[in-house]
């Protein structure tokens, strides 16, 4: 066991190394690139035996990854943002092949406008593709989640690919103390990949990804994926339990921070949840019974865990670092659906906030304000309209940029 400072990208690479991955199809994209550079460096220095191949695009990378996993080796790959979307066709495809591999997505806002810092529209675009999703808030969690992801993906009851998400910049380039577990312990937790019947071999011909005609066969195979994903809820709990027993770190499907006696909750995913956690501590000091609920597992969606955690609370702020244009926050919708689908116990008011797009800061003051809005919602007996977080100061800053752009255009002789 070594405790050292690692970036989120470094932690992801260490997770892959400890999982003894056989194959890494790669394609560079900011802010993910450090992951493949790290692995490539280890391979070149003969510190680690694996095979890294740079493909011609993410579309090709995802295809090669799925094809290799379907031939029977342990596969890892990483991407971000535009790359994830460029490979999207193949994410659906290789999930349909039931290729049990692990990918890391380093979240970054989507074009246009093109930008670098994180939000979750990239990873949530992959929500329905058949990849399971684990979302991380610390670098340690990134390393641990990659190991957990292989156990989950390769479990005979699941056999689906798993995506591990970390936020660009906030985790990818931020050094945190990380415990690198001993290989012996990792080997005990994660046995070598047994592809069983998933392989192309001369003496056992196989057809994979074949066409089906008609809706019945198509529905059957898609339902199979869905049922396997649902089974992954139970399997996840088992795997997390094993992980805690071996490594002493507990990564539950849903993290509940100071939730038990809370009247109010923030619900957030990924690294910005650590900001909410800080705010919870400060609000608690001021006497407000508030907690933080952080789903780590987004697919399968842990509806039961969430319903249980929300029962009896008065009001909940769902803070989405994403925006479904024309509808609103995606986690808010998912949570609302989970609550609507459960037995009608005493369920809280849900209040929707959207913030943190393109890495926009969410300040302590904004968390305090959101807590105020929750209390007001309870007093009013109904939730307010969803809010898009944006301050007067920011608006002034953007107006200034618009003035500069306009002045420049006028100088060029264009219209004002």
């Amino acid at each position, binding site marked *: 066991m070594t405790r050292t400072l690692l970036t989120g990208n470094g932690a992801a690479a260490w997770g892959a190394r400890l999982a003894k991955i*056989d194959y890494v199809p790669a394609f560079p994209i900011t802010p993910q690139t450090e992951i493949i550079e790290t692995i490539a460096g280890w391979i070149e220095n003969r510190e680690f035996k694996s*095979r890294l191949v740079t493909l*011609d695009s993410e*579309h090709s990378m995802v295809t090669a990854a799925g094809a290799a996993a379907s031939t029977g080796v342990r596969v890892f790959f990483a991407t971000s943002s535009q790359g994830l979307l460029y490979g999207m066709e*193949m994410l659906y495809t290789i999930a349909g092949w039931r290729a049990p591999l692990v990918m890391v997505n380093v979240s970054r806002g989507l074009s246009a406008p093109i930008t670098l810092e994180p939000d979750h529209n990239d990873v949530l675009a992959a929500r329905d593709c058949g990849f399971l999703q684990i979302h991380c808030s610390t670098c340690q969690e990134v390393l641990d989640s990659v190991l957990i992801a292989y156990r989950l993906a390769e479990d005979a009851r699941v056999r689906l690919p798993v995506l591990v998400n970390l936020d660009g910049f906030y985790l990818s380039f931020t050094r945190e103390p990380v415990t690198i577990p001993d290989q012996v312990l990792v080997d005990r937790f994660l046995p070598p990949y047994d592809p069983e019947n998933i392989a192309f071999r001369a003496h056992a011909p196989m057809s994979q990804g*074949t066409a089906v005609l008609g809706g019945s066969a198509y529905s059957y195979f898609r339902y199979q994926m869905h049922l396997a994903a649902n089974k992954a809820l139970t399997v996840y709990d088992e795997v997390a339990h094993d992980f805690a027993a071996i490594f002493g770190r507990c990564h539950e499907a849903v993290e509940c921070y100071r939730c038990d006696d809370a009247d109010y909750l923030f619900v957030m995913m990924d690294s910005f949840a650590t900001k909410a956690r800080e705010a919870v501590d400060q609000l608690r000091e001021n006497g407000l019974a508030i907690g933080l609920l952080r789903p780590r597992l987004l697919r399968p969606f842990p509806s039961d865990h969430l319903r249980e955690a929300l029962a009896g609370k008065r009001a909940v702020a769902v803070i989405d670092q994403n925006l479904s244009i024309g509808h609103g926050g995606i986690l808010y919708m998912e949570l609302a659906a989970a609550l609507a689908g459960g037995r009608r116990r005493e369920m809280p008011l849900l209040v929707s906030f959207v913030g943190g797009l393109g890495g926009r800061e969410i300040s302590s003051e904004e968390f305090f304000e959101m807590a105020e809005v929750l209390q007001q919602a309870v007093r009013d007996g109904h939730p307010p309209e969803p809010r898009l977080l944006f301050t007067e100061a920011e608006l002034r800053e953007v107006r200034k940029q618009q003035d500069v752009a306009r002045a420049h255009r006028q100088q060029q002789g264009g219209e004002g």
Partner: protein
Amino acid sequence: MSEIQNLRDLPATHLLGTGTPMCAGCGGLAALHEVYDILGTRTVFVNAAGCMTLLAVYPFTPFRGSWLYTAMAAAPAGAQGVRDALDILRAQGKIATDEDLQVVVLTGDGSAYGMGLNATSGAMDRDLDFIYLCYDNEGYGNTGQQYSSATPHGARTATSQGTRGYPGFKKDLFAIWAAHRPPYLATVISSEPLDLARKIEWAKDIRGPRLIIAMAPCPTGWEFDPAETVAIGKLAVETGIWPLKEYRDGKVVHTKIVRQRLPVEEYLRRQGRFAHLFHPHRQEDLLAEMQQRVDRYWRQVEEAE
């Protein structure tokens, strides 16, 4: 020297199953039959979206070996993943040599000339050990023969219905591939089975990217009677429209040079897709232009010899 000297040397056992949903008289399927007989069943065919995607429809396949359908742009990348994984497993001693497979990409011209060209270029950059078989029916055949970048000048397609047909020119994919300097390239056609078999026989045992374009006369897309497939194919060669050639050791060699080429008209007038060149009146300028282009090509070949 190839062991295949004459038609009697061609394999007597045919490996590809019958009863596929390809059209009657499909020149692409005929080429695949001939190729599969040479390559054998220790193969995995990695397919891109196109007519031949319908070869393997659950739960049936005409292949005795393996099959992987990927997507329209990605077949060479699928081949990369399979090849790399097999190499890894062999190096780890997890599979025996006789469990190894020849990885064969199978796509139409829509993928090969267009959407899949980037992935193919990448596979050649990486010196991927694979065979690429493109069946070129000169249009997006599976969707009803819209023009692709393999469509010849003047051909009528579902998206070039005017009196002068397709305004563009057939892309020289062979030259694009050759610019990557792979170990082996060839053009073939099913109506010349001996030439085809020799080339596949040769390609089979080389390492690295080996790419084959099979011109695929297409009764439904080119509008001719399915019984004419072989005749059309022979005319494509005898008029000089489809040069049979190889690229080996950095040099292009023509494997069949027709000294007395037939006029291109002989080829064109038997296909509905060129009917507008002859009816209601002959479009002399277009016909002359097509003939000149073929003549110019062969003049350059003869000068280079």
